[in-house]
């Protein structure tokens, strides 16, 4: 198991390095292909050549590609100082640099936006996992009945309706709608530490909309894997042994059917932590997704790099956790 973990960890680090090089290169090479100095973008209106040169030097854009890249990677582990003397700007580790646009430390910008995505992920994932799996199991057990058919039709709707549709619809009804339906007026993000009740209240609509989308997927997936598993030999054996039906379903069948769910759950939560762009946009939350959009629009390289690395990091870690969880969930899986 240890060797397995080490291998996966090293693999994850390699993935992150490759992603960072590619993102860096895109920002470095593209302006050169267009024959323009990237510093001009950050130098204000009608900048003189001297100003562009000064900005270029300040942002390190005049250095060769690998020097810039190395400076950036080094900063993550030991911090970095930009400039000298009184005007020097110190960036403590983990240093992801300063925004080209407003000079804020990138690490600070990302970590201040992260709570939005953590909040969205926590609530929505619990809701969709429980309702999705429960619905799937019930549908599988009552396969062919009205319940099953209704549940799967609703699930189909959930899978097909994009989040911006359900989100806007829920806002139109419960936020801007008729007075007697305005249960959630003025939806905006409130930090958990600021007011847990307000935090939860403002998150209900995005949680439900997100959960609807994912629960639908999980219900359908659970149903099909359960149906498949329920027809396996070992389930027949368990029944033949006289075990209570409950034990057969939960301890034996579900446990085996759950492996694809675990895989997808890890990936989904990992991706969600990296930024729920559409959800944030619809409900006006400024999370990592919104930060990504803003910084791409501004061509703010350090922030784009930071956001990309964060998102990739969450997915890589989620993948590793999921693979480890496999070994505990599915007794047939061993790592040696």
């Amino acid at each position, binding site marked *: 198991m240890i060797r397995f973990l080490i291998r996966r960890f090293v693999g994850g680090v390699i993935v992150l390095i490759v992603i960072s090089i590619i993102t860096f290169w895109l920002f470095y090479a593209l*302006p050169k292909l*267009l*024959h*323009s*100095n*990237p510093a*001009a*973008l*950050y*130098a*204000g*209106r*009608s*900048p*003189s*050549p*001297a*100003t*562009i*040169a*000064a*900005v270029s*030097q*300040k942002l390190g854009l005049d250095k060769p590609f690998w020097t810039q890249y190395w400076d950036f990677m080094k900063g993550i582990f030991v911090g970095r100082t930009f*400039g000298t*003397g*009184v*005007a*020097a*700007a*110190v960036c403590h580790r983990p240093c992801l640099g*300063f*925004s080209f*646009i*407003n*000079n*804020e430390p990138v690490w600070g*910008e990302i970590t*201040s*936006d992260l709570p939005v995505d953590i909040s969205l992920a926590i609530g929505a994932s619990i809701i969709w996992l429980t309702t999705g799996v429960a619905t799937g199991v019930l549908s599988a057990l009552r396969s062919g009945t009205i319940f099953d058919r209704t549940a799967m039709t609703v699930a189909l709707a959930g899978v097909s309706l994009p989040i911006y549709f359900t989100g806007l619809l829920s806002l139109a009804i419960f936020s*801007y709608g008729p007075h007697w339906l305005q249960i959630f*007026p*003025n939806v*905006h993000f409130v930090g958990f530490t600021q007011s847990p009740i307000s935090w939860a209240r403002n998150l209900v609509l995005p949680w439900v909309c997100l959960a609807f989308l994912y629960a639908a997927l999980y219900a359908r997936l659970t149903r099909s894997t359960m149906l498949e598993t329920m027809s396996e030999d070992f389930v027949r054996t368990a029944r033949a042994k006289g075990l209570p039906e409950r034990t057969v379903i939960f301890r034996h069948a579900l446990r085996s059917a759950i492996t694809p769910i675990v895989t997808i759950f890890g990936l989904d939560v990992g991706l969600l932590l990296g930024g729920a762009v559409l959800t944030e*946009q*619809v409900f*006006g939350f*400024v999370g990592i997704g*919104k*930060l990504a959009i*803003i910084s791409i*629009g*501004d*061509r703010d390289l350090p922030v784009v790099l930071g956001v990309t690395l964060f998102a990739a990091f969450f997915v890589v870690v989620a993948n590793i956790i999921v693979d480890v969880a496999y070994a505990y969930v599915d007794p047939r899986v061993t790592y040696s």
Partner: protein
Amino acid sequence: MNPSTAKGGTLNVGVAGDVDYMDPARTYYAFSWDIHQLFSRTLLTFPDGVGQQALQPTADIATGPATPTNGDKTWSYTLKPGIKFQDGTTVTSKDIKYAIERTFATSVINGGPSYFATFLCPGGENSSGACTTYGGPYKNKAAVYGLSTISTPSANKIVFHLNQPFSEWNYVMTLFGTSPVEVKVDQNPKTGGANYNNNVQATGPYKIASYVPNKHIDLVRNPAYDPTTDGTRPALPNKINITTSFDSVTLDNDIVANTVDLDIGGTGVQPATQAKILQTSSLKARALDPITGFTRYIAILSETPPFNNIHCRQAVEWAMNKKEQQDARGGIYGGAIATTLGPPTLAGWKNFNEYPGTENGPDVAKAKAALTACGKPNGFHTTIVVTNQGKGPQQAQFLQNDLKAVGITANIKEFDPATYYSSVIGVPANLKKDGYGLAFAGWGPDWPAPYGFFENIVDPRKILPQGNSNYGACSDPKITSLIQQALSQTSPAAEYPFWQQVDETVNKDACDAPFTYDKALDLFSSRLKNVYIEPQFGIVDLRTLGVS
């Protein structure tokens, strides 16, 4: 709209983007300047209200505009007594000198207007725009208060010795680079330099309670502010909360629902909201549709053949359908037909039209005659460049059709707005190399007087290799001569006729073909008081607003 003098309450403002900087020396967005008026006082400012009177600089920290001596090169200002930073320290002339010195350190303090270095660099800037005789106050202690061209004979007197005559210097004194900065805050590495952005010391009626980038800016009353020293800031609300990175559609809905008071971005409501406003009389009653001060025009790139011939350029002026361009920009609520490059919100503006009749539609006959005159009776081929978002693509297509009607074939190339100005049309070498002939552009002034609008976009000496704003690359020597004559006048009013002629020459030469003055349909909450559009920014004046 809704006059009132009642104090109190919290003003709730939203904006779709964010300020570029809180550091007054570095900010360049119009709406950011509007917000800065609340906490960054400047030597001079603009009066409240509308009309030409609101376009003349008036007292803020200084007792009033200066009358220049020494051929428009020496400008003296007296500071009012009793102006303090938020920590209670009295503002002196040295604090203003230091604030301007910071703008010379372009490797630390960059992003804002660079006029101070241009006119105060001892001996003048070199050919690439660098001031080699003074590099800012961060290099060594001697550089602090070391700029020889600003003298501070006493704590309440400051004198500027320009390196060349400049009749609009009073306008430069309205810029936020003149907002005083305390040396002890800015010379401390933790709170100064690039970090000053998070430690701005207020001199206005409000101070910054909290600034979280991309989230919000909260302003509260500044206890050290003395309202008797100020004539332009009623400062009615007790608190001002600005929520940034607001989703545009949500912001519109919130203003309609009266949970947010206004959108300070100043670019108007979304198209869907515009339809709602025009159909609902209660919404229409709390909407304004001002001219924003931006002119939209087509730069006819004279370095790209056949636009090196004036008649080929004039053919485009006659062929363009300005009414269609207006439609593409949102109809009569999105723009007013323009026949001058300078907008009506410029001091000394006069209307004229070098291409009579084109305000109603194209003149195909005259366009074809112009083509014959430039030796292309059967037309030619060229490339139109435009941004790929918003109204740009539609505008480009309309232009393409208009040109086709007179025999000019054009293909359209679209670019991302983030890089369009700085990297595409701002690099003259690329324009020539790629054969781009026509570029959609827009421009607003750094201050509402002719130099502040025209200089960077029509002065042949301002064609920069990178980040260029003189897209048309107008090189008529007549323009240079007129600008020089304008600058040597002893008062702004005396300059106006020369800049007028600059505008006329640019239009006659067809370097830039204006088609609309931007308008924006803005919506406000029903409780908002004292609402009007300040002409220098084209955005609602935050100074006068009340919510009680």
